[in-house]
């Protein structure tokens, strides 16, 4: 280990100890378990700083944080899946004794069949175990059966829903009135204004929606060459899409900044105590 690394490591350990002591002292008399609370807040703060240190350069503290995150996340999802779905949905349907062990109410079979248990629920167990065979180099191929189940379910679920919500409903919603509150051209000119809820602005919005969707789709339609009228429509489609991407960019900036503000608020309030939440 290089000398500079040892010095940095030593400094971080000292700062950690100081922070722990300071936070524990601050919590003393205010909260129970003040030593533990001081430790936990310090841990959170140092992990936050470890990740932020990546902005300077990739370094051992960032790598430590990154690897810890991967391990914790994987186990987190496993535990949640186990308690919510395996214990919550599967065990109550396949075993009364296991249900009693896990203190979940047993669900008797809905079907009249040769077995006293809800035997159909062994199907996902079998498919689940087959999926785990992927870890084996020789029997890995059999996990395809489970994969086929997953793919088939996803395809079956999506087919109707996307057709209805993202196709039919969207087409239907695009047929908006192109003349709103129309009382003739004279009235339109005399009442003309740029109020956000006014006739002209609402009509303009509807025209943009209608033409924007049609021209956007023309832009994505590659079976006909984009020349002449198709070319002009396609060009308008690109402009509409560019506005869309610009709006998405604006919102993305907004979202990312919010996350940074959230982390800095934590550092300045919970850890350093400089501001009140």
């Amino acid at each position, binding site marked *: 280990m290089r000398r500079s690394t040892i010095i940095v490591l030593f400094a971080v350990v000292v700062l950690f100890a100081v922070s722990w002591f300071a936070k524990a002292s601050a919590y003393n008399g205010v909260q129970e378990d003040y030593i533990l609370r001081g430790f936990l807040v310090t841990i959170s703060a140092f992990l936050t700083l470890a990740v932020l240190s990546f902005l300077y350069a990739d370094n051992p503290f960032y790598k430590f944080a990154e690897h810890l995150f991967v391990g914790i996340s994987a186990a987190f*999802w496993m535990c949640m899946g186990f308690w919510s779905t395996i214990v919550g949905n599967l065990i109550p349907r396949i075993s009364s004794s296991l249900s009693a062990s896990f203190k979940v109410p047993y669900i008797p079979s809905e079907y009249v069949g040769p077995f006293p248990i809800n035997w159909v629920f062994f199907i996902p167990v079998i498919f689940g175990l087959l999926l785990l065979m992927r870890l084996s180099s020789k029997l890995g191929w059999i996990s395809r059966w489970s994969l086929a*189940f997953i793919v088939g379910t996803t395809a*079956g679920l999506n087919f109707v829903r996307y057709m209805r919500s993202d196709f039919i409903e969207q087409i239907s919603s695009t047929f908006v009135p192109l003349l709103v509150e129309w009382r003739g051209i004279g009235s339109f000119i005399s009442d003309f204004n740029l109020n956000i809820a006014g006739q002209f602005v609402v009509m303009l919005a509807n025209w943009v929606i209608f033409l924007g969707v049609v021209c956007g789709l023309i832009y994505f339609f590659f079976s006909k060459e984009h020349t002449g009228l198709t070319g002009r429509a396609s060009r308008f489609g690109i402009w*509409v899409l560019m506005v869309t991407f610009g709006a998405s960019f604006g919102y993305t900036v907004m979202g990312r900044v919010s996350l940074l503000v959230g982390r800095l608020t934590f550092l300045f309030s919970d850890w350093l105590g400089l501001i009140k939440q």
Partner: protein
Amino acid sequence: MKRTVPLFITFFVGTLLIVSVFLPPVQSMGENFTLFFDIIAVFAFFLGGGNLVRIHLDKVSRRKKDWGYSLVTLFGFFLVLASGLFKIGNAGGIAASVTASGSWFQTIFERVMNPLSSTMYALLAFYVASASYRAFRAKNREATILLIAAFVILLGRTPFGTMITAWIPDSLSALQVPNMAIWIMSSPNLAGQRAIMIGIGLGVVSMSLRVLLGIERTYLGEDKG
């Protein structure tokens, strides 16, 4: 066995789920098959966890580069696994929620996983800012349109936008920046997103059909069986 059975399973399950939408007597079967799917999804979590442990154990045992960090991954993994599976520190015992307040599992989530996850994404704020300075150029007409839309949204989604255009009279309120932002979102943005959505929707529907009919087989891998 390697291809025919999976193709049959895909066709059978997918078709049944589609039919269950239209035929109420089959609805219960459709619900059950979806429930099976949910249970198998948890086995996929186990597969992910098992694979992670296998890879990092291998890295540690062979003393590969950065194997020390693999120990960190394994430590975090087993600590959370033990805390969650045994519900350590859970005041309500085995019957209480795994995420009960004060349990080790919930505490590790709040104090370790939460800061790690949120800070990783917070880093992106810096990169977005840097990219804005270095790469966001009005090089042509399309890029300029994109830039103007982004500007209006960035300004319109802050109270500053309201402040600088509050003097504009009501009859011209569409020119106030926040209203321009609202108009962009609910008109051209809506149109563009809808065109994309219809395209993706058609893509999903046709891909689902290809999968169910066995035309699309890439998910089965490459070998022939």
